[in-house]
């Protein structure tokens, strides 16, 4: 009996905490009136399902607080769902009760929802978005010719992180071209440290590498066609990119742990292996969020311990200025003045600045002042994203999930096979095509 009452008490406590999170996010009342005019005409409440938990949810609460300074009568109920958001949303939609708004990381999933007519366009926010975002960003939120999503937050995925002492010991400089990268990798190996740390247990680290190589070799137009499966995966361009990638993957003695090690280390391991003490490898190919893992899990310090360079260019000319991003797209399932007010506000620099100040944030909103970023590396990444000439979305997120983002299947699984046998370019490309064709056929 006592045990049961304890369990009930624990359950009540959990519920209370959960309710408290919702309440504290929702009831964030403005402490003082800002210089912006306060609008009390619009009132209502908006439910918002997002993937952010923990510190990211706290940062988003700051954004909501900034919104409530302008619209004190609109209550935002943010629900931190976590990484299985698409599952939760799919179930909620099937049951007929989706939230008012959601934060979705997969454009492929949004495309599916748009085709099913589940989403509402956000054309009312078009002028606000146009004021703050360049055309490529608006394009990312456009589906079937209409604006459906706001890219609120973007991660720069075209980056390579390196261990500064390793580079110093080997006497190499951050490479600018792919050829320089391979030479530097050779020198690093001779100096006694493997050049690459690969987190191949997470398939997405491999697809990201492929996507950057493809983008740098063939440019944005081809990239977008491949994303939409208008180019087949058996195309010669895909094979060329695979061969280029094979130059890294087949250099097995230059990968920390060799092939079987790389297959067992996940993304986090790949970062701590490279930047832990002692450093076991020199470079990690991944997005801006690597810096968060380094600072939280290792003692390495920016500039003296770790630094970053843009993914090297492969073909000469314009393609190298494009940036691959992964991002948070905000979509709406309903339409009312309160939702419209919130969407419009999110497109303003005030909303982005509120999060940027908390760190770990980059956005395409080019009106965010550089002073909003709390440190130099955040600022460099943030401004590089804002200034990007071309922006493409993470390709695997644009595909149907069974091909682009399911553990062990589709792209993730096949690129893990490629890590095992980098010489089998033809076999890998036909497997990719077979899997993509099946996924696109089923998605319809």
């Amino acid at each position, binding site marked *: 009996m006592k045990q049961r009452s304890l369990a009930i008490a624990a359950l009540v406590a959990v519920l209370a905490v959960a309710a408290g999170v919702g309440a504290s996010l929702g009831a964030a009342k403005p402490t003082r009136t800002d210089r912006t005019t306060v609008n009390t005409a619009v009132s209502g409440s908006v439910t918002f399902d997002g993937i952010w938990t923990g510190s990211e949810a706290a940062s988003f609460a700051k954004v909501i607080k900034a919104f409530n300074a302008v619209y004190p009568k609109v209550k935002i109920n943010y629900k931190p769902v976590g990484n299985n958001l*698409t599952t939760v949303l*799919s179930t909620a939609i099937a049951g007929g009760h989706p939230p008012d708004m959601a934060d979705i990381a997969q454009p492929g999933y949004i495309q599916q929802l748009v085709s099913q007519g589940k989403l509402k366009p956000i054309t009312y926010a078009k002028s606000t978005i146009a004021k703050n975002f360049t055309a490529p960003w608006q394009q990312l939120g456009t589906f079937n010719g209409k604006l459906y999503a706001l890219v609120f937050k973007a991660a720069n995925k075209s980056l390579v992180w390196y261990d500064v002492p390793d580079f110093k010991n080997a*006497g190499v400089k951050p490479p600018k071209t792919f050829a320089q990268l391979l030479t530097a990798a050779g020198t690093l190996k001779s100096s006694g440290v493997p050049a690459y740390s690969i987190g191949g247990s997470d398939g997405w680290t491999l697809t990201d590498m492929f996507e950057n190589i493809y983008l740098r070799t063939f440019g944005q137009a081809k990239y977008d066609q491949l994303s939409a499966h208008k180019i087949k995966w058996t195309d010669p361009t895909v094979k060329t990119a695979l061969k280029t990638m094979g130059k890294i993957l087949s250099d097995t003695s230059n990968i920390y742990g060799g092939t079987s090690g790389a297959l067992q280390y996940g993304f986090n391991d790949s970062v701590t292996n490279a930047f832990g003490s002692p450093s076991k490898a020199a470079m990690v190919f991944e997005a801006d969020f690597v810096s968060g893992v380094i600072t939280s899990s290792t003692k390495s310090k920016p500039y003296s311990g770790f630094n970053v360079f843009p993914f090297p260019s492969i073909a000469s000319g314009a393609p190298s200025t494009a940036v691959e991003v992964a991002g948070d797209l905000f979509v709406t399932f309903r339409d009312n003045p309160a939702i419209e007010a919130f969407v419009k506000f999110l497109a303003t620099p005030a909303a982005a600045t509120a999060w940027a100040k908390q760190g770990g944030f980059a956005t395409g909103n080019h009106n965010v002042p550089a002073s909003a970023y709390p440190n130099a590396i955040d600022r460099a990444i943030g401004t590089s994203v804002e200034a990007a000439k071309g922006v493409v979305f993470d390709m695997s997120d644009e595909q149907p999930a069974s091909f682009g983002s399911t553990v062990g299947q589709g792209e993730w699984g096949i690129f893990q096979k490629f890590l095992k046998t980098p010489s089998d370019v033809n076999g890998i490309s036909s497997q990719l095509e077979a899997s993509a064709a099946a996924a696109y056929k089923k998605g319809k």
Partner: protein
Amino acid sequence: MAAPPPPGESGERRLARYATGALFLAPALIVLGVWIVYPAVYTIIRSFFGQTGYLGTWVGFDNYKRLFTTSTLTTAIKNNAIWVAVVPAFVTAMGLIFAVLTERVRWSVAFKTAVFLPMAISAFATGVTWRIMYQQDPNVGAVNALIRSVKGAFSPAGVLPSALPSSPDETAQSSGAIILKTPLHPGGVALLGLTAIPPDQVPSGAKQAVTPPAKQGAIVGTVWRDFKPGGGVPGKVEQGELGLPNVTVELRSSDGKVVQKTSSAADGSFTFGRVRSGSYQAAVGAATFAKPFAGYAWLGPSLITPSLLIAYIWIWAGFSMVVIGAGLAAMPRDVLEAARTDGATEWQTFRRVTVPLLAPVLSVVFITMIINVLKVFDIVLSLAPESSQQNANVIALAMWRTAFGGVNDFGTGSAIAVFLFLLVIPVLALNIRRFKREA
């Protein structure tokens, strides 16, 4: 089940009695209906419809066809078959052995507790623990560390395990030795450059490398870390490159026989004195480069299922031991004593008396394990790294991945669930029949 109404009861009374019965039954019926009957019926219906929506479009048996044609799902079915073939038998056998042995040892309570303890840990936590124990790097994984301590005693690692030849004049032999291809004659100089040596692996006391001057009637040379920041020129001794002291260098005759051996000095130089005329080669023996044990890839695609089975048996052996132990305790002792008095050996007593008497208990354990293993899920998810989860896949995991793992294909997911349900039914039926017989 209403009792027959007592004679002379009025219709109103009877109604009230039924209402009371219904009222008492209601909670159980509602719980069963909402959480068992409705989901089960809905899942069966859902399995004939397409990917999304509350129902989606009618697809007939397509989802079931996919079950046996998609490689992901066939792997899962095959793996589940392996699980069913191995685990129940092993768990029952181990439990039987432990139960019989603990009856006869001192400290049997302590032993039983130790064997039973894994049952107290959640399968997910067990998966995480074993995943760390199975790590390939022997510095991290306990299993490989154990193997290394045994192996290391027989074949110790060399002093420069990661070194590679630095110039194309050298080659690494299949034995592991690094040899200078250029033939040497008395009065010659051998330059054995090595690279890929981390700075902290250079033996202490190393000095700037020098090329020794050629000596009449002798072969001299140097073995050094042929690397300076930026790379330097391979095969050339440069300022800033350190000699490698205490490396055993061999002089080999043209037929490959080791003629002389010497050890390098602090600046890496070495001398083979009084060399007869002829053609020679200089080499650094394989022992210097012997790699430390790198560990087995327990979590790799080929070993992952056996690794999972071991961890799972480790969990359940305790359960089996306790259940069988209880059966053993309840067994009539006089039968055993009678067998022994009649001259049966211990093995015969065990084989002909104990096991047959325990058969009902053994079958309970066996059947319970079959059901457990058919729906095994959490340990695979937590133990297998994502890169080998495909190879370790089981039906329940495949169902979850298909329905909720991003693909959100509720149709195929439901079909897998129904298939799993069909597999469990015969075992359940067997169990229920046995319960009835016992009652």
